[in-house]
């Protein structure tokens, strides 16, 4: 005769495939879907839309190493060309061509401008957040799992994130980013799923600014390749040597 607990446990396992994975494991899967490993490169097109204003388009190439180092090169429009943005962990520098040194950007200074979207795009869920499973929810025609993520360290940008993934394949669908006070700051939608580097990945991210109505950005990823970049590139004093 099986103990009641074990019996219930087995039923639960059998009835819900999803519970075979812990929330942490689900997060890992999400990260694996979003990014092809820890080291890769891609092109990025950023379209900034605001009600009543003309779309503003910027283009970049991004090099990522070891998941927490990113080097962003501005390629369009022409007056931004040559600028570099370096992110290592929680630190950020910007380098303007023909100047002596890169400028360090504090967390408060990142509030303004399109840099703020970088935080949303860069987030490595499994590294920075603890997950808790909430309920299942239906978004459009899809059955989703809703996860509540809380920051592991006080360096994390968002205190709390709600993440919806597909119940079957854990493809991330939507995320809500909250301030420490609980106020909703941004909403992200993961779209444009296509096969890239051996997996289906979301190639379009739509980020809505919940504090400023009618304002949202569309980030489109392309040319994703699993290419390495030398470590030296991710040092602030090396930036001015990068062509």
């Amino acid at each position, binding site marked *: 005769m099986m103990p009641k607990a074990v019996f219930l446990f087995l039923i639960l396992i059998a009835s819900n495939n999803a519970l075979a994975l812990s929330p942490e494991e689900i997060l890992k899967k999400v990260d694996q879907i979003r990014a092809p490993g820890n080291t890769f490169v891609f092109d990025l097109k950023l379209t900034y839309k605001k009600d009543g204003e003309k779309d503003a388009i910027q283009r970049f190439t991004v090099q990522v190493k070891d998941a927490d180092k990113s080097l962003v090169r501005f390629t369009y429009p022409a007056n931004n060309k040559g600028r570099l943005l370096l992110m290592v962990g929680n630190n950020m520098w910007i380098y303007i061509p023909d100047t002596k040194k890169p400028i360090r950007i504090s967390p*408060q200074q990142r*509030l303004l401008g399109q840099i703020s979207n970088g935080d949303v795009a860069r987030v490595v869920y499994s590294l920075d957040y603890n997950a808790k499973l909430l309920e299942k929810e239906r978004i459009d025609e899809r059955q989703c799992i809703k996860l509540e993520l809380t920051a592991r360290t006080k360096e994390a940008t968002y*205190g709390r994130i709600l993440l919806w993934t597909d119940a079957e394949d854990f493809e991330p669908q939507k995320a809500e980013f909250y301030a420490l006070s609980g106020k909703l700051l941004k909403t992200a939608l993961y779209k444009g799923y296509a096969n890239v580097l051996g997996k289906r990945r979301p190639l379009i991210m739509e980020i809505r600014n919940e*504090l400023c109505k009618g304002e949202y950005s569309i980030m489109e990823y392309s040319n994703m390749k699993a290419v390495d970049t030398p470590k030296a590139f991710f040092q602030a004093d090396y930036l001015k040597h990068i062509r």
Partner: protein
Amino acid sequence: MKHSFFTLALRNIFRNKRRTSITLLSIVSGMVCLIVFGGFVEYSFWGLRESTIRSQLGHIQVYKKGYSEKGVANPSKYLIDDFQRMEGLFYKIPYVELVTARLSFSGLISTGENSLICKGDGVIPEKEAKLASFEEIVDGEGLFEEGKEEVVIGSEMQKSLGARIGDDLTILTTTPSGMMNAVDIKLVGIARSGAKDYDSVFAKLPLSVVQRLLFTTEVEKIVILLDKTEHTQEVAQQLNLLFKEKGLNMELKTWNDLAPFYQAVVRLYIGIFGVIKVIIAILVLFSIANTMTMSVFERVKEIGTLRAIGTKKSGILKLFLWEGFLIGIMGAVMGIIAGILIAQGINLCGGIYMPPPPAMTTGYNALILIVPGVLLYAFLSTIVISTISACYPALRATRLSIVESLGHN
């Protein structure tokens, strides 16, 4: 010995009453100019100084050691965690009227439509009312209660945001460690300090709200207000002693250190006043020299006679120097009285309206302060200049040939 030259000089001054009156008038005018302008300048300094102190800076600010050098880039490392204790200690120092704390941040303030950069100050509302006595609330009201989610913003900021009293605004910033935070607050007041740049970025919120925003219990600055600005240096010394005594790892800056704009204005005005002093001195000098020269010319025969009956050249010199000196004293006394009366008269009429100075948005009514230093300077310089301007005519008088003088007229 001096007695007779004094009598002679005094009586000679009153010989030609009209000429003496005109000379005195020019001296008095010069002095009144100095006294009024000096008093005007002093008032402007006072106004600028007190408005800077009583809307932004306080008299003395106390920080954790190292803050003024490195804290701007990295404030979180230099926060003060034992404000209560400091407060208790500081209140024991004489002349200290108010001790309060501030915590500031920079971030975005947003109506939902428009966002602006803002520099926010977390303040203790009941204490802030005293500190901000030069900050005019032009609409709505000031911050009231600690803990309430309210904000007062600058008048220029309000114009750019297009917000109105009662609107809900959102403030977005990051904690010192980098975590984003936002809070909804109600706009309850619009304030104007008069400094345009300040009014376009500042926002005041209750300290506890900012502490919540930045996820800390510490404060950034301790702001001290004194009963009188003149006591600043003394209190600063006391505080430094206190830091040493109790081994507090703190540093301080006086309002003087924190107001380079004020220093620049003071230097500018002092320079201008210096030029004016010189000009007035020259005018008075010429006026008296002219009078005395005419006086000498008219008395050539007398001078010759005095020389003939035994007066030495030095005696003649003394005679005319005395005349210059006495005119100077009379003019100085009359000038002081006239200056004070006119200054008070101007004040009773409400002062002189001045348009807004650079970087300010409102003009002000300048009153004329009676400045003892200026009065003393005007008094002494008038006497000195009068005596000096009598020198040349006096010397010329001594060089007259006796024979020619006697044959004059």
